[in-house]
């Protein structure tokens, strides 16, 4: 036994993987090393094209017909698996090495029941009887905290929610007690509060089953919560490895530091300590520079030292636990110097209200034309997408609307933009009531004055038109300019404003990267000098280093033009960074609204509390209380009567929460909470975030205490 415990479960040495296309050999992963022991969890972090998913596929030996391992070795439990036969591979997959995927809905077969898919694992690998396979599968479903396991066994994948699907995928992976678990961005497709539950489950697994884990993610916060060690990858290479504590606080590679500078840590602040984007762009796989891959983007690059020869990984001396970096100059760099130009911005004073929403309701009608409905008289059901929304946004202010799927934020955006009309209530924009005017009936200046930046950079531009053509169209449509030369001029100035080269005018969207496309989207939104811009998750689909650049760009433009920004997001870290005021929505209703400081500190609405607790934080000096919500988001078609949150609320009072709509508690001029719990009790609640001292012991208020179930206040 002791010998086995010391043999690493996974040992990758000098791994090189390439793809073979008609254009030649493209190296995807170069000189990669990784060791994982039983019970250990290693995070593999990087951006697109860094090769992290390729490594996972290589471990599974599933590289496709045009990919191959061209060098190095992968040892699983001491055995080299790079040369296994097909049959040996098949035995290994799913039983000793299992994988959990990014999109659970796509990973499950839509035509087979969950039970059938689960039972396959023990049936195939251990040859047990069907009854035993059924029992074990059912037991595993309970182990992953899925209620009503029998129903789930008989259900089809589309009949259960995304979070439940992912639990099923996890159950499927664990059924034969694998020694190694590969997790490829397992929570990217899930809502924040659901994600928290899955993360907790994953952390439990390592302890309960002793599995070794490789956790692939682009989110440093998640890695911090689930992993013991981390390996940072850039453009096909590992650039820094070490324990979480070492790499997060004593990083020794400029890229790692750049990553941390680009994410909105709690210490970042849009005025005093803005995000610093990593300059330059990720190199394409066939255009990697000689020497250090990160060289062209690194401010410490020194010719001769950092190139043209290849740089190897070196140990960082003086550390008790192994810590390696691929930087040739890490001894010479001053790691405490501040990043970026130390830019400080003046905070802006907000002006008069630009947008006033008062009691806005948007109900959709669902017609049930079945005979049963006709007989019972319930032919029409209402989807209460937005229920009595009231808030306002002032000039030059950034108001964030926060919520998960089904909270109604997209519906609200549609009503604002005129794609839908409100059922009741008013929305006043710059003095005009717009809740019942569709966009085509609105005057041109008003349309130009209220524009939107969309979420998906790949879909935000028409693929068949040139960049310049699209922006020109917008300018002419809004009547900003009509003279072709003036239009052209304005397009150029807009391209300057979003820091894109002028010759992008002629390019088509497919020739642009994600970040560049999003910049064009920003330019398009600002083409008509809008007074207010709605940004719907504008950076969630971008790489981390690009997110910072686009976020800062948006900030800059907003500052300069005094535009009001309505920022819709589910990412509370970004929201904390840039919002002045926050509106928290759940199932169509506003649960809490206030300034950023007010929302992030007590008193909290219970939902806000859970939401804050679910945010992954990459700052090791900050810890948080764990609050995990049970259950799923209820359906919007039949929202619960009374408080919409009562089905999952850990602080539920009792019957009153189910029967009556909660009153609006007023904490301050700007801070309102909709809850039945008396304000004093909410004010006495512990903060969710607190700082920890260097050695790991909490320095702030009480030690972290998990709060689940129905504790009624503290």
């Amino acid at each position, binding site marked *: 036994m002791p010998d086995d415990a010391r043999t690493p479960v996974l040992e990758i040495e000098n791994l090189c993987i390439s793809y073979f296309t008609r254009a030649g050999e493209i190296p995807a992963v170069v000189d990669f090393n990784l060791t994982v022991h039983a019970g250990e969890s290693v995070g593999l972090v990087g951006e697109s094209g860094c090769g992290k998913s390729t490594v996972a596929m290589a471990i*599974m030996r*599933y590289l496709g017909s045009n990919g191959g391992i061209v060098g190095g070795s992968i040892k699983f439990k001491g055995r080299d698996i790079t040369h296994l036969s097909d049959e040996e591979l*098949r*035995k*290994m*997959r*799913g*039983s000793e090495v*299992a*994988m959990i*995927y990014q*999109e659970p809905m*796509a*990973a*499950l*077969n*839509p*035509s*087979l029941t969950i039970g059938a898919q689960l039972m*396959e*694992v023990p049936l*195939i*690998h251990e040859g047990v009887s069907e009854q035993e396979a059924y029992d074990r599968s059912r037991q595993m479903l309970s182990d992953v905290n899925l209620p009503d396991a029998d129903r789930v066994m008989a259900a*089809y994948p*589309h*009949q259960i929610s995304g979070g439940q699907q992912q639990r099923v*995928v996890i159950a*499927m992976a664990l059924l034969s007690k694998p020694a190694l678990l590969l997790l490829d961005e397992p929570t990217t497709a899930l809502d924040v509060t659901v994600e928290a539950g899955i993360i907790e489950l994953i952390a439990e697994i390592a302890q309960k089953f002793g599995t070794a884990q490789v956790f692939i993610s682009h989110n440093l916060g998640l890695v911090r919560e689930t992993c013991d060690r981390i390996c940072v990858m850039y453009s096909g290479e590992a650039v820094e490895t070490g324990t979480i504590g070492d790499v997060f606080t004593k990083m020794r590679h400029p890229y790692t530091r750049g990553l941390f500078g680009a994410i909105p840590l709690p210490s970042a602040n849009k005025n005093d300590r803005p995000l610093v984007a990593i300059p330059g762009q990720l190199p394409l796989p066939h255009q990697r520079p000689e020497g250090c891959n990160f060289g062209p983007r690194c401010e410490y690059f020194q010719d001769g030292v950092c190139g043209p020869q290849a740089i190897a990984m070196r140990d960082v001396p003086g550390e008790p636990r192994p810590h390696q970096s691929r930087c040739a100059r890490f001894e010479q760099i001053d790691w405490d110097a501040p990043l970026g130009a130390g830019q400080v911005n003046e905070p802006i004073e907000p002006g008069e209200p630009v947008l006033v929403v008062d009691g806005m309701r948007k109900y959709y009608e669902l017609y049930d034309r079945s005979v049963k409905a006709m007989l019972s008289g319930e032919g029409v059901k209402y989807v209460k997408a937005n229920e009595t929304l009231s808030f306002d946004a002032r000039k030059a202010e950034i108001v964030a609307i926060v919520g998960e799927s089904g909270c109604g934020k997209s519906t609200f955006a549609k009503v604002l933009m005129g794609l839908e009309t409100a059922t009741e209530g008013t929305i006043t924009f710059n003095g005009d009531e717009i809740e019942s005017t569709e966009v085509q009936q609105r005057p041109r200046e008003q349309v130009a004055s209220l524009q939107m930046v969309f979420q998906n950079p790949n879909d935000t531009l028409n693929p068949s038109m040139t960049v310049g053509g699209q922006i020109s169209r917008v300018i002419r449509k809004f009547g900003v300019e009509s003279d072709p030369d003036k239009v052209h001029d304005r397009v150029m100035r807009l391209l300057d404003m979003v820091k894109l080269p002028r010759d992008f005018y002629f390019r088509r969207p497919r020739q642009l990267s994600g970040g560049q496309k999003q910049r064009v989207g920003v330019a398009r939104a600002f083409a008509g000098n809008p007074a207010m811009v709605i940004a719907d998750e504008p950076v969630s689909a971008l790489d981390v280093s690009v997110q910072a650049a686009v976020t800062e760009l948006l900030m800059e433009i907003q500052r300069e033009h005094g535009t009001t920004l309505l920022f819709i997001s589910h990412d509370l870290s970004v929201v904390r960074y840039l919002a002045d005021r926050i509106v928290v929505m759940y199932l169509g209703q506003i649960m809490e609204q206030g300034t950023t400081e007010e929302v992030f500190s007590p008193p909290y609405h219970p939902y806000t509390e859970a939401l804050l607790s679910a945010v992954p934080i990459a700052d090791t000096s900050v810890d948080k209380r764990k609050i995990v919500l049970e259950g799923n988001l209820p359906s919007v078609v039949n929202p619960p009567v009374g408080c919409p949150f009562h089905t999952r609320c850990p602080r539920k009072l009792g019957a009153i929460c189910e029967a009556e709509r909660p009153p609006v508690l007023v904490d301050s001029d700007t801070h309102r909470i909709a809850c039945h719990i008396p304000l004093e009790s909410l004010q006495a609640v512990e903060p969710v975030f607190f700082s920890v001292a260097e050695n790991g012991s909490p320095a702030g208020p009480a030690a972290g205490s998990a709060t689940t179930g129905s504790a009624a206040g503290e």
Partner: protein
Amino acid sequence: MSHRVPPRRSLTTALSLALLLGVLSGMKEGSVQDRTISVFSIATTSVPEFASGVFLVGIFVLWLKWLPGVSNMVGGFDIAQMVLPVAALVMYGFGYITRMTRASMAEVMQTHYIRTAVLKGVPQRQVILKHALRNALIAPFTVIMLQINWLLSGVIVIEYLFAYKGFGSLLLEAALNKDIFVIEACTMVAVLVAVGTQTLADIGYMYLNPRIRFS
């Protein structure tokens, strides 16, 4: 008018064969077996029915002299007289179904859930039979239902070519002679068949696709 329906048994065997070929070729996209089957199926969908009738007659009647070239059933029902017309009739549909199935199968093999099955250690045979097939056959199924209508219309050509007195020639004669009543009657029959198969297709599709069944 009742003597018109081509033998059903040969239809089902032709159908299954077409599906099988489609699956085989879609399984390993780009492989030799895929390419050969694809060539064959593209060839059969390029030939109009009367032409395939002509070619078949040319080969089997004139050259090999195996089968009779005319199917007027003078001496009562004769299987040998049915072979060529049926073959000509179904050839086009055969190729079409094979191609559709191939496309559907190839698409299914690229999905994430097949990847999950493979990475679970499911043996290849089971991946195809249990995981892929169910999803791959949904699309061709609806096509097959439509093929029945195609057959009904192809029958016109084939009967004309082989001098078979059935629905097709009845309609054709009526059309050429402007016999309104017969035309109307034929139309009604055609509509009935169309509606019937459409309903069958809807039912069958609901059955095959769990997503529709339970939503």
